[in-house]
C-alpha cells in the first residue's frame, strides 16, 4: 500500500480569494436558487410527460422502458425541491427504488411503478 500526503488544493484556492462570510455566500446562493423555481417546474412537467402509462412489447423492450422510467425519475430528484415541490423528490426516489429493484431482479411488473406514479 502506498500512502501519499498532499497539499489540500481546495484549501489553497480558498485562501487565495478575498474573504467573504459563508452566511453571505449561502444567502446569495439561496436567492439564486429561488429564481430557478419556474424553470424547474417546467422541467418537471417535461419529465412527467416522459413516463409511459404502462409497459408494452417483448421482455427486452419492457426492460428498456423500466430503465427509462428509472432514468427519468432519477433526473427528477432534486428538481422538485428547487421548484418548491419537495414531495416530488420523495416520490421520484421511491420510483427509482422500485424500478431499480425490478431491474435487479429481472421482474417486469409495471403495477409497482404505476402505483407510485399514480399516488
Amino acid at each position: 500500500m502506498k500512502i501519499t500526503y498532499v497539499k489540500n488544493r481546495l484549501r489553497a484556492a480558498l485562501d487565495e480569494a478575498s474573504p467573504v462570510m459563508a452566511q453571505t455566500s449561502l444567502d446569495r446562493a439561496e436567492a439564486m436558487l429561488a429564481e430557478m423555481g419556474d424553470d424547474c417546474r417546467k422541467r418537471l412537467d417535461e419529465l412527467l410527460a416522459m413516463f409511459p402509462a404502462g409497459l408494452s412489447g417483448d421482455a427486452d423492450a419492457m426492460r428498456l422502458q423500466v430503465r427509462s422510467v428509472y432514468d427519468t425519475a432519477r433526473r427528477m430528484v432534486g428538481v422538485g425541491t428547487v421548484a418548491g415541490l419537495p414531495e416530488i423528490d420523495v416520490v421520484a426516489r421511491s420510483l427509482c427504488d422500485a424500478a431499480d429493484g425490478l431491474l435487479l431482479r429481472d421482474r417486469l411488473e409495471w403495477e409497482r411503478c404505476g402505483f407510485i406514479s399514480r399516488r
Partner: protein
Amino acid sequence: MSASKAPKVLLNLQKTAVLLADSDTMGQSIVVQMLVGFGARNIVRCDEADEVRRLIKNQTFDLIIIDPASFGDEGYDLLTSLRRDQASPNKHSPVLVVTGHTEQSRVGQLRDAGANFIVSRPLSAAVLLDRILWMSREKRPYVETNHYVGPDRRWRDAALPLGQTGRRQKDKEVAARIAAGGEMNQADIDLVMNAPVDTAATA
C-alpha cells in the same frame, strides 16, 4: 464546521477552478447557481463523458463535482480512472459525488471509486457549502492499493470538525460521560485532541 452554526466561517470560491460533470442540464444548473452564489467564477460545465475524460487529463481543478450515475456505466469508470491515472493532474483533487439515486448494484462501485464525499439529492445550498468547507479542511492522505485508490477511508477514530455534532456511538458515549460530570479516559482525550483546528478558516 457548519456555516449555520458558525456565522464567522469564510468561504469564497472566486479563485477555485471547479469542474462540474453532470449529463443532466437542469441538475447542472442547480449546482451552478449555488456555486456562483459561493463566489465561483471559474466553473467548467460538462455533460459528456468523453469530454470529462479529456478535461481531467489536461486541466487541473481545485474541486470536482460529478454525478456519475448521469453518465451511465461510464460515469463510475471516470471516477476510478481519475484516481488511477498516474499522469492525471487531478489524481489528488477533491471529488464530491452528487447523486439523485444509486442503483443497488452500483453502491459498492461508488464506495470504492475514490470520492472524498458522496451527497445525495435533493441538495441544499447549506449542505453543499458544508461539504465544501469540510473538504477544504481535510488532511487525509491518499492511499493506493490494488483495489482502492483515493482518500484514506480509515477515519473512524478521527474527531469530527469543530462544531459538528457527532452521530457515532463513541461521540454519544463521550458526550454523555462529560454531561454526567464523569472523567474522560485517554481514548476520549485522544478523540478530542485529534480535532482539526483551522484558524485560517475562521474570522
